């Protein structure tokens, strides 16, 4: 919890430093800030303040590079964010309202589009699931009829 206090103090400081204009949390420091589950994250790949304000740009930039050019660096990859920040309770970044992404975003009322498609939980075996040709347990049943 020391971390949380630390984090709050930082926020207050930043607020005092007149960052009012920025649409970030500092603007309302002191009000009830979101309690977020930070998961097992020790230290972010960037400075926290920087991340708070710029994570969306980093992610957007990275998404285009990865998808369109096949650049697969991990520093700013959403998958890596999820791996670190998934809550210890729910295992997810957006399953409950205290989870890492959900808490801030619901606080700031910014709708998230990521989780319609992206997994909110880290994979079981992040990279090395490739080995054997898996027969999916889902495939055991006979092919289903159409639903209509």
């Amino acid at each position: 919890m020391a971390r949380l206090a630390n984090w709050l103090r930082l926020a207050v400081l930043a607020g005092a430093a007149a960052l009012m204009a920025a649409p970030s949390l500092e603007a309302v420091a002191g009000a009830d800030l979101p309690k977020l589950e930070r998961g097992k994250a020790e230290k972010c790949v960037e400075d926290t303040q920087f991340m708070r304000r710029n994570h969306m740009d980093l992610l957007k930039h990275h998404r285009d590079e990865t998808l369109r050019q096949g650049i697969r660096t991990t520093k700013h990859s959403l998958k890596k964010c999820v791996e670190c920040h998934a809550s210890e309770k729910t295992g997810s970044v957006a399953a409950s309202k205290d989870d890492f992404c959900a808490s801030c975003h619901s606080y700031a009322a910014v709708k998230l589009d990521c989780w319609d498609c992206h997994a909110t939980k880290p994979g079981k075996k992040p990279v090395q699931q490739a080995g054997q040709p898996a027969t999916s347990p889902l495939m055991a049943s006979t092919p289903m009829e159409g639903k209509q």
Partner: protein
Amino acid sequence: MSNDFCTDLGQCRTKQFMTLLGIGGVVVLAGLYAFFTLEHHGHVLTGMNNQIVWGLPHVFAVFLIVAASGALNVASIGSVFGKPMYKARAPLSGMLALAMLVGGLAILVLDLGRPDRLVVAMTYYNFKSIFAWNMIFYNGFFAIVGLYLLTLMDRRLKLWSKPVGFIAFLWRLSLTTATGSIFGFIVARSGYNSALMAPMFIIMSFAYGLAIFMVVQSSMYRWNGLRLDENVRRRMKNLLAVFVGASLYFTIVFHLTNLYFAKQWDYERFILLDGGMYTFLFWVVQVFLGGIVPIILLFVPRSKDTEAMCFCFLAPSLVILGGLAQMYVTIIGGQAFPMNMFPGHQVSSSFYDGVVGTYAPTVWEWMLGLGGVGIAFVATVVAVRMFKFMPQDDFTELQMRRSTD
């Protein structure tokens, strides 16, 4: 906002006006409700699937868009070709065109898998895509026709109405060409890949647009207890007959040229002979009810009173019905027919290769499609009520015949 007929604000027949608006409003609301439901649950609720990817909403949407560009034709004949009778109808024609385009586009947008990304559709353009070009044409159509309406309705700008009308005319031709090409450019499917698609869409747009124009015009006249002048009626009926005849002709040529290419035989067999629903819609609704019957109705001499009925309401209504059937056969029939990946082979798979796709529209799709029609309807009703869209050529004469109201 200035004539003695019931077209001005809140003067007369307010009740009926409100009723019309109410009906239209309910239809629009139903459409919106369908949209929110689909947006939440996804397209599972529709009859559309991975074989028939465009369904009933697209039938209504494409019909409205095509008819929109056709409705503008009345104005073009007036401004570009200088026919005074049509000139008097130019404002109504332009307004109808805008209303229908709004309705059609609304359906297209609301049916997207990700309607929330409309901004993306407006900001990312792939200029190789005819679909993207269509979006540009649609937006341009609003601007140009809007400007055109302004020149028609504002005395000081009258001078400009001819050149702007001419641009509008060219623009609408390109727009329909582009709309037809959405289908014509699909090389993969037997039903679509044809250079005739675009010209056929243009001819059909003439017929559908004029038909809708005539229905609206007759309704407006009747609403005001007026009768459309004999001369006007005769000319419009002839024009409609020509357009419907030309559409029929194009339909024949389209299928005949298809028959000329052996690889298209199977598709033609499907549409013309054993496509079940599609064959029925083609022959009975599109060709017979929407083509042959209206032509007969338009030409068979009748006594004065029934004439009014047939010319100005029944015949164009049938043309509209036929037009919807044509869109259904083209859009859905064209997808239902299986793609032939392995010529000379019988094909089967878990993904419905080699079988005719099944499609049964659900109530949500009807709501969405009709909602677009409702939008066009409400826009028309409101516009007619608020502004001076009543054709004005023959008022002096007609005023005398005006029934008590």
